[in-house]
């Protein structure tokens, strides 16, 4: 793998980041095009009016309220395709440094960031596709204020989605924690508004507000941690931080900073106990946006976690394991149990999915823990195995983040269809879905099975890989404790917890199937389901991905492995 150095905003820069530039141009177009009109501007002091083409009555061609969604879709699809080509063809890393100073790194496009961006864009494409139906335009001939209002804000919605995409790609590309934070907030602010987008609905605006308040608090804590880190090392650049961490002594400051930063990212991936606002937000938001929160937004938080925990603090490796090992292990176990137990009793499918998403965060944290452990015995010969194991775990996490888009988002999209008739507040909404629309019910059931981890669906593969990665680590590392006479490493405990939790989760995932297939539809939901071809197309894509990546996911796994390979030397400080 070769590294190419590029100066920010020089001639090469734009040609290397075409997907992101496309997004940016799309954003500008989305702001401009719907606003073009016959507006004029009166020269001060005269009666002369000069047309300046903004505002006023819209032209015929841009008066169509569907226009913003189509522009956004076009932009997003083209960005996804470009990024896909980058993922499957490019293997180089591009390092963007500040003008005139090659040591100040800002962004880096590498296999890891490419893959993550691809995931983000894919998820957002599906969200846009579904939102075309979910937040449908109303007939413009109807002159009522609510119609006007609804159609006017179409543009806002897609502007926010593209902003979110831009923020997410900055997070994936960032080589500096401050840049990362800016990208994170850019994306987060968009999602705060998107959650409350339906501001006529009390639940929507309330949940958006809560999500914003708690998110701000968490961000504040995280930012405080970042400032402490800066205070400690004098830089927030990731490689410098990693270097500083490798030479850490008996200090308190960096550990406090680490803890505070973890809080910030813990909120993003909705790890317990920072997850509280998440179920409210998921339940209040339009389901397409809930899907976005549960997949892309969570993956974004995961990038932060991976960068902080694995890239920066890992090489320090106090006695062969990271300082945060126990903390994250505990956090992960609490998170999975909390998520699963709470989901167990949730009647509202959206809340159930939200809690299941919390549980999934727990699984990923468990995997991170495993990756953070290596070579406790100090035995050099075991190091290769440990590195192999960490690589497997990391690849498994990335794979999981990818396939999560297929089935978690897919499940939310099915709920979106139901939401188009009336709000989804309890399991009544999905009762008898099989009788109303067998295909949708089957799709939902496939998603549930995949979430539960049933072969041969992709959810099974990702869960199995994570689990086996953890076991691999546990085997590769020699035993540190004795249990019932057997020398076992305590990381086995994480695998065990994951197994128990998977068992618990099967209950509530399959109950969705019971409700869909065996219950009668409730009175208010007897008629045929709302139409909407776009949302069904996106659900179909999700089904195909869910099944396809489970049966033939090897190619994606390979990409995930090469992305993990890119991070490995950084993790090890090699």
């Amino acid at each position: 793998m070769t590294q190419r150095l590029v100066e920010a905003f020089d001639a090469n820069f734009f040609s290397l980041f075409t997907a992101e530039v496309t997004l940016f141009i799309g954003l500008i177009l989305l702001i401009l095009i719907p606003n073009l009109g016959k507006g004029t501007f009166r020269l001060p002091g005269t009666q002369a009016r000069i047309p300046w083409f903004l505002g006023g009555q819209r032209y015929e061609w841009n008066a169509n309220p569907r226009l913003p969604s189509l522009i956004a879709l076009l932009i997003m699809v083209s960005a996804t395709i470009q990024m896909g080509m980058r993922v499957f063809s490019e293997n180089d890393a591009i390092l963007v440094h500040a003008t005139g100073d090659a040591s100040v790194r800002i962004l880096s496009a590498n296999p890891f960031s490419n893959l993550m961006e691809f995931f983000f864009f894919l998820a957002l494409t599906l969200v846009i596709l579904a939102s075309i139906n979910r937040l449908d335009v109303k007939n413009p001939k109807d002159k009522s204020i609510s119609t006007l209002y609804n159609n006017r804000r179409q543009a806002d919605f897609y502007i926010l989605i593209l902003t979110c995409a831009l923020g997410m790609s900055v997070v994936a590309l960032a080589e500096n924690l401050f840049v990362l934070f800016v990208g994170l907030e850019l994306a987060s602010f968009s999602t705060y508004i998107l959650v409350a987008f339906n501001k006529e609905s009390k639940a929507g605006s309330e949940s958006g507000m809560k999500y914003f308040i708690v998110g701000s608090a968490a961000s504040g804590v995280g930012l405080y941690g970042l400032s402490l880190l800066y205070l400690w090392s004098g830089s927030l650049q990731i490689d410098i931080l990693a270097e500083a961490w490798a030479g850490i002594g008996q200090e308190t400051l960096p550990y406090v900073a680490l803890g505070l930063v973890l809080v910030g990212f813990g909120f993003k991936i909705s790890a317990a106990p920072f997850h509280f606002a998440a179920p409210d937000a998921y339940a209040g938001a339009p389901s397409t946006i809930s899907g976005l929160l549960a997949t892309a937004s969570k993956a974004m938080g995961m990038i932060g976690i991976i960068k902080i925990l694995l890239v920066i603090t890992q090489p320090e490796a106090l006695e062969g394991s990271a300082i945060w090992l126990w903390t994250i292990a505990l956090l992960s176990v609490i998170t999975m149990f909390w998520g699963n137990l709470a989901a167990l009793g949730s009647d509202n499918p959206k809340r159930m999915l939200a809690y299941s998403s919390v549980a999934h965060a727990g699984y990923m944290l468990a995997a991170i823990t495993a990756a953070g452990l290596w070579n406790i015995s100090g035995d050099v010969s075991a190091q290769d195995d440990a590195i192999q194991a960490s690589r497997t775990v990391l690849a498994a996490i990335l794979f999981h983040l990818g396939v999560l888009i297929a089935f978690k988002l897919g499940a939310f999209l099915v709920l979106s269809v139901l939401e188009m008739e009336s709000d989804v507040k309890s399991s009544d909404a999905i009762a008898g879905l099989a009788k109303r629309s067998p295909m949708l019910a089957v799709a939902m059931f496939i998603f549930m099975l995949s979430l539960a981890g049933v072969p041969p669906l992709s959810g099974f593969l990702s869960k199995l890989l994570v689990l086996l990665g953890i076991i691999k680590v546990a085997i590769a590392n020699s035993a540190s404790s004795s249990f019932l006479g057997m020398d076992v490493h305590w990381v086995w405990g994480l695998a065990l917890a994951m197994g128990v939790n998977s068992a618990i989760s099967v209950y509530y995932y399959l109950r969705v199937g019971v409700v869909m297939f065996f219950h009668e539809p409730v009175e208010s939901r007897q008629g045929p389901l709302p139409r909407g071809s776009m949302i069904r197309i996106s659900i179909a894509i999700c089904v195909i991905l869910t099944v396809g990546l489970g049966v033939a996911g090897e190619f994606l796994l390979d990409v995930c492995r090469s992305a993990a390979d890119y991070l490995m030397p950084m993790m090890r400080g090699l």
Partner: protein
Amino acid sequence: MGSSYDEVKNALDVPSEFVFIILLPMLAFPLILYLGMKFNGQKFWKENLKEGGLVALPVMAASLVLSLVLIRRFINETSVSDTSTVFSWANFAWFTEGATTEISLYSLNFGLYVDHVTVMLLFVASFLCLLINIFSIGYMNTDEVNDNKNHRFYAEFVLFCSGMLGMVLSDSFLWLFIFWELMGLCSYLLIGFYYDKPSAAYAAKKAFLTTRVGDVFLVIGLAMLWNLFQPYASGGDALAFATVFDHSNLQMLADAGKQGALQLALGFMFIGAVGKSAQFPLHVWLPDAMEGPTPVSALIHAATMVNAGLYLVARMFPIFGDSAMMGEFSDLAFIIALVGGITACMAALIAFVQMDLKKVLAYSTMSQLAYIFTGLGAALWLANSLDWGEYPNKGIVVVAFGAALFHLFNHAMAKGMLFMASGSVIHEMHHAHHDLHHHHHDDDHHDDHGDDHHDDHFDAQSMANMGGLASRLPITATAMFVGSASIIGIPLIGGFWSKEGIIANTWRVAVEHDPRFYIPAFLVLITAGMTGFYMSRMWFMTFAGKPKTEVAEKVHEQTPWIPIPLLVLIPMSLAGIVFASLKSTYFLGYKGYKLGEDGLLEGFLYEMDHIFVNPGTNYLLVLTYIAIFLSMVLGPCAAMALHGGRLDEGQKAKPWMQWAVTLSGKLNDKYSFAGWAEKMSESSFGEALRQRLYFDKYYDMAMMKIVAGFSNLSASFDKNVVDGFAIKTIIEKGGQDSSRIIRSITTGSARDYIMMVAVGTLAIAILLWGVN
């Protein structure tokens, strides 16, 4: 020195698109189901697509074409190479993560495996599936009872076909087992197609449970096999044929002294085959399975699924024939032959007294499958005990194995045809009965057709209601005639070639090598005569003599689609000699040995010479003629005397059958043995035969007393202790309670949430601090 399997293997790659042979029907399953649910009752679905029949048809046709291309490729590859064993695979890895590192727990491959056995069964399965599909369109869609249910039938039908084709093509015992079970499921569903009829539901359950007994043993056998080969399966599937048939692996097993364990594993697997192929003592399900619609009987219980057990045993051939295992498995080979011999004789006996047309065929199926088992047993014995290096031995083994497989082919063709022809008879009887009824009570009989089946007691399947149909159903009667001739083994027609081979080879083992084989050898020889009797009895009772009921007088062929498969299959049985010659030319190659007949004519001359003139030794020649006498003269003549008769005045069968009818009339006039036959039938032996030798009775008793008692006990344990206490109280209540507690922390107030963030922050700080 013996040769080994892998010395001669010649691996070629099968292009992976041939997997569509399996995939197409598998994908058609949800398609038909979906379309059926969506369009049921609509005209174009019912008329133009035949409720899915015409969706399934192109799929099965495509499968057949692909199969034929594959077979052709195989023949081309093998005939140009000196070594005539080709096995080859297209591999589809599911995912191989970890295959390179030390934990290789999870690699699952599916591949296609093609050799002579595969080719034979592939042709049989895909060809008959297509024909039966055509037949079903005629049979199922013209019966109002099935309206709006047929999509279910066709969906299950294609799923079954994909199971059968998958089993034949898969490259590992594991996948074989998976498809085996898929077939079991479809068989259950199809037998119970009329699940609202208690007898059908019962029959489906019985078939499923009885084969399940065998399957349990099969699983045990496979587990043992896996355990044996696991050390030698470098990271791959320990049950893959490539691993199991590998000479060096078998040699290592032999060196480790594991021959006994291997024989046990194979023995357990054989019990699975016994269940699937309805052999003694797990045969009781097959006659009851006739409750399913006739196409199902033709498909599952004659042509394809029941052959699965034979296929499994035939698959063991390379293990038996490996030099590392020489002489080790003769006991198992004997048991296989013995089970075959007993079943053959017993089933033929029971078939003597059956009055139900389909049940006669069911017992005949059991009996003929048993022939094949006997033949396989003899072939396996020879393969296992003879030294391959010596000159005539290879030829002997290959011919014996070929005879058994060839009988499978002939039987599938003939029995598929017989079942379809019986379906035709039954269908036309129904129609005639229906028409008759409507004429008689035109006004007061407006019940739907379904009630006709259940309410009045006219049995359209009983031969007691038939008779004299030869002139009324010419195509059907011809098909039955040819099919019966093939099963009986009339010289030059289909089954003759293979049956003679089986009898001769069993005797060869008995006379020259292992006297234990005299038991199965005698049994199959007698059965040849018994087959002649019961098959002829069936034909003459149905088609000759005077019509025994009013209904039988009104029968005529009127249903479209049904005659097509019959007309296709008649030549398939008649042309037995062509296939026999083809067999000698192309298919009789195994283990590097080829018979070396280069063309059809040479193959023909070889077969004729081998059977009628010079089969090697004199006693075999004598045997051949004894068998011909028994099956062709004694059995049929007895049947004619007892059950034959002339047709009504003015009725005339087609000339190729008329002579038989006339002859039977003459014989019947002269020697009807009326009193003796009565006596026999009333004797306790006759009664025992009618009660199917009491197997069902005692099995049921065992079930009711022992199994059901145990079931009830465990059911009450499950209900009261597991469900009632453990699940309800501990898990469910505990889960819901803890869920409630946990969710109660989620108050809904942002203030509390921030508070929890603070708590979390503190906790993390303490944890990080604590570690330091």
